[in-house]
C-alpha cells in the first residue's frame, strides 16, 4: 500500500521536473537564462505577501472547478460544462450580492448558496438528459457553456444594468474580502474563498470516500452494469453527480463574483477556469488533496508567469510555451510510467548480469 501511494506522488513530481527541464531547454535555445527565468517565476508567485496572496487568490476558483470535474469523473461522467456552471454561479452570487441588503451572516451564505444552486441547476440539465435519454453529457455541457456565456451577458446588460458593461459592486455584507486579510497580504485580492475552497475539498473527500452516496457514485463510475445489478439507481447517481459537480463549479463562480472582482462584467469569451479544471482534476488524480496541489501548481505557474517577461525578459509567448510544457509533462505521466517500466527492466537486466558474474566467480 505504501509503495503504491509513493508511486502516485512520485510520478507528478518527476513530471514537474521534466517540464521545468524542457522549459529550461527552450529558454536556452532562444538565448534566455533559464535560471533567471525560473527565479522570476518563483518571485512572481511568492516574492512578497502581495504576490503570495494573488497566487492563493488564483488557485481558489481552480480548486473548486477541479473538484467539480473530479466529482463528475468519479461517477464516470465528463463534465465539460464547468465553464458555463462557473458563469451562472458567478452571476447568481453577484445578483444576490447586489439585490439585497442583509446582515453579513445571512447575506454572504445566501449569495454563496445561490451560486451553488445555480451551478447545480446548470449541471442538472445534462445530468437529467444523460440519465433519461442517454444523451452524451459532453455534447450537452459544451452547448450549455455557450448558453451560459451569452445569457449571463444578456442578463447583465438588460436586467442587472441598463445596457451597462458590468454590474454594480456587491454589498459589503456579501463580500468574501476582509480588511484584515487584505492588510495581511499587502492589498492583494486574496479573500476568504480559499477557506471555503478547502472546506469544499474536505467535503468532497468525505462524501466520496466515507458516505454511502460516494460509494454508489464511484461504483456507477467504475461499472454501471454491476451497479445496476447491485440495486443502485444509476440514473439517480448520474443526476446527483452532475448536480453536485455543477454546485462546485457554481462556487468557483462565486469566488470571482464575491471575492476577486466583487462584480460581474460582460465576458467576451470563456474564463478558462472550467477548462483548466479538467486539467487540474486529471493532474490531481481526481482526489481532494490532488486537486488542491494541482490548483496550487496552476496558481503558481499562472501568477508567476506574469512576472517572467518584465523581470527576466522572457517574452510572454515563450512563457506560455513553458507553462504549457510543464502542465503537459505532468498530464502525460503515462510517459513517465513508460520510462518506469524501462528503468525496472534495465534494473532487472543489470541484476541478472551481476548474478551471472557472481555465480561464475563462485565457481
Amino acid at each position, binding site marked *: *500500500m505504501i*509503495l503504491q501511494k509513493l508511486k502516485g506522488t512520485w510520478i507528478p513530481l518527476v513530471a514537474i521536473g521534466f517540464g521545468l527541464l524542457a522549459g529550461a531547454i527552450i529558454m536556452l535555445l532562444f538565448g534566455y537564462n533559464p535560471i533567471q527565468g525560473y527565479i522570476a517565476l518563483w518571485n512572481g508567485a511568492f516574492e512578497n505577501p502581495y504576490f503570495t496572496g494573488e497566487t492563493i487568490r488564483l488557485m481558489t476558483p481552480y480548486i473548486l472547478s477541479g473538484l467539480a470535474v473530479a466529482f463528475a469523473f468519479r461517477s464516470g461522467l465528463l463534465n465539460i460544462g464547468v465553464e458555463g456552471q462557473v458563469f451562472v454561479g458567478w452571476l447568481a452570487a453577484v445578483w444576490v450580492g447586489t439585490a439585497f441588503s442583509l446582515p453579513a451572516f445571512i447575506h454572504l451564505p445566501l449569495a454563496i448558496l445561490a451560486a451553488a444552486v445555480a451551478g447545480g441547476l446548470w449541471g442538472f440539465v445534462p445530468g437529467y438528459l444523460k440519465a433519461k435519454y442517454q444523451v452524451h453529457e459532453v455534447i450537452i455541457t459544451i452547448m450549455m457553456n455557450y448558453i451560459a456565456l451569452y445569457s449571463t451577458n444578456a442578463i447583465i446588460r438588460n436586467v442587472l444594468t441598463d445596457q451597462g458593461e458590468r454590474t454594480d459592486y456587491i454589498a459589503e455584507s456579501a463580500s468574501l474580502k476582509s480588511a484584515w486579510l487584505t492588510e495581511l497580504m499587502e492589498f492583494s485580492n486574496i479573500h476568504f474563498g480559499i477557506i471555503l475552497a478547502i472546506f469544499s475539498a474536505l467535503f468532497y473527500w468525505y462524501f466520496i470516500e*466515507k*458516505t*454511502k*452516496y*460516494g*460509494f*454508489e457514485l*464511484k*461504483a456507477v463510475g*467504475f*461499472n454501471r*452494469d*454491476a*451497479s*445496476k*445489478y*447491485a*440495486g*443502485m*439507481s444509476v440514473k439517480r447517481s448520474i443526476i446527483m453527480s452532475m448536480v453536485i459537480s455543477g454546485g462546485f463549479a457554481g462556487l468557483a463562480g462565486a469566488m470571482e463574483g464575491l471575492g476577486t472582482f466583487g462584480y460581474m462584467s460582460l465576458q467576451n469569451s470563456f474564463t478558462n477556469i472550467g477548462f483548466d479544471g479538467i486539467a487540474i482534476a486529471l493532474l490531481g488524480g481526481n482526489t481532494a488533496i490532488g486537486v488542491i496541489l494541482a490548483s496550487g501548481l496552476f496558481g503558481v505557474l499562472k501568477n508567476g508567469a506574469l512576472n517572467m517577461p518584465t523581470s527576466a525578459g522572457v517574452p510572454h509567448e515563450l512563457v506560455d510555451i513553458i507553462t504549457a510544457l510543464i502542465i503537459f509533462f505532468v498530464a502525460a505521466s503515462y510517459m513517465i510510467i513508460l520510462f518506469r517500466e524501462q528503468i525496472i*527492466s534495465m534494473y*532487472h*537486466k543489470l541484476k*541478472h548480469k551481476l548474478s551471472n558474474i557472481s555465480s561464475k566467480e563462485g565457481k
Partner: protein
Amino acid sequence: MDYVIEMLDIRKEFPGIVANNNINLQVKKGEIHALLGENGAGKSTLMNVLFGIYQPERGQIRVQGQDVNITSPNIANDLGIGMVHQHFMLVDTFTVTENIVLGSEPKKGLKVDIAEAEKEVQRISDQYGLKVDPKALVRDISVGMQQRVEILKMLYRKADILILDEPTAVLTPQEIDELISIMKSLVEEGKSIILITHKLNEIMAVADRCTVIRRGEGIGTVNVNETSTNELASMMVGREVSFKTEKQPAAPKDVVLDIKNLVAKDNRDVDMVRGLDLQVKQGEIVGIAGVDGNGQSELVEAITGLRPSEDGEILLNNQSITNMKPRKIYEHGVAHIPQDRHKYGLVLDYSIGENMVLQTYYQPPFTTYGRLNFNEIYNYAERIIEEYDVRTPNSLTMARSLSGGNQQKAIIGREVDRSPDLLIAAQPTRGLDVGAIEFIHKKLIEERDKGRAVLLVSFELDEVMNLSDRIAVIYEGKIVANVEPDETDDQELGLLMAGSQRQKVGEPQ
C-alpha cells in the same frame, strides 16, 4: 536436444507473492503441450515470462537450444513465439487481412500492398485449413473465426511456437471440434503448441504431454496417454477430486418462486421470454437447460428486476415482485449469482471487501447516518473470505487482481450469505477449474438442504444433470418440458433443447 522451448527453474515474484517457483517446461518440436493449473496457479504468469512481458527473478529460457533473454514481446516474436490471448486483440472495423498485417505491413513504396497480403493470408489459411475469408470485416465474423484470425496472425509472422491461452473458453462445441482439428494440422506441419487450459477433457483429446502447475509450483510433466483425468485433476488440485456431486434426494416444500405467463424483451425489443411458466420450491434445485439465446438471460433479468416484464406475473412467497426495482427484490429475499462476473458481479476496481457489500452497503451496520462503517464492512468481508475459501492476500485487495475462481467464490459467498429465500445461479461455474466447480456445487447443494429454493441456469448439460432435482427445458422463451434428471439422459435433453416434443422421443425420425 530436440526441445524447441525450455524453461528451467523459473521463479517470478510480485510484491508479496511468489507467482512462479521452481517451474520446468520443456516443449518438443511438433507436439501439443498442455499447461494445466487451477485459475490463479501461475500459468499466465509463466507464459508472460516466456513472451517477454515479465522478467523472471531466476531461471533459464532456451529456444531451439539457444540461451535467450526475452525482454519484450518483440523479441519473443523474433524468436518465433506467438501468443493468442484469451481476449482477442483485433480491430473490429478492419478486415481480416488488415488485422493480420497490422504492424508488419508489406510495403509497395509508401503504400501498403494489401492485395499481396490478402494472397498470403489466403495461402496460409488454405495450408492449415483455417477457412478464413481475408476480406471479411472482423466485426462480421464469429468468435471462433476471430480466434482463427489470431492464429493466422501468428503464422503470418512465421511463428513456430504458438501459445494458446484458454482457447476454448469462448467457443461453442462445434467450434471446439474445429479448433482441435486445426491444432492437429498445425503440429503435423511442424509447429509446436502450448495449450493453456484447465479443462481436462480437452487435454485428453488433443495434448501429447501435460505440465501441471499448482499454486505457482511446478508439479511435473506427464504423457497424456499414460494418465487419466482423475490423475491430472488430483495433480492440479492436490487432492482427490470427485466429479459426481454427492447429494441426498430433495425434499421440496412450499412454492417460493411462481412465474406465470412471463413476457420479456431483449435490448433489440424482440420478445425473448414468451409466456413462460415456472415454479421453484423450497429445498429443491431447478435447473434450466437450454441452448444459449433461448431467453435464459432475459428470464433471470426479469426476475431480478433488471429488465421490465412486459406481461405476466412473478410471485415470490405469494407476493408479486413483478417490475419492482432490483433493490426491493433483493430486500424481498432474492439473491443472484450473475452469469458474467466481470460485467455484473463485481466492481473490479473496488476492493474485495467493498464488493462484499455491493447490495447491502446502505444498511446498518455497514452504514450509519449515511456514513460507511469500514470496520464493519471489512470484518464482514473477512468472514466471507474465510468461510468461502476466497484466496486473496486480504479484503483490501482489488477485486480485479483475484483469479476468476476466487472472484466467483467471493460472489457466491456474498449472495449465499444473505440467506435468501430464492438463490438464482446463472452459469455459476463458467470458466472455472475443477476444484472451484466442486466447491461451488457443494455450496449450492448445502443451500438447498437448508431449505432455500435454487434456480440454476447453465449451458453445461453435465452441470444441470448433476445438480438439479428437476430440469426445466427452455426453448424459444418457454419452458417446453419438466423432467427428472434420473429419468432422462443427454440425448433426450439435447432433443428437447432443440425444440422436439417430449412424446416424440424414441420414435423413429
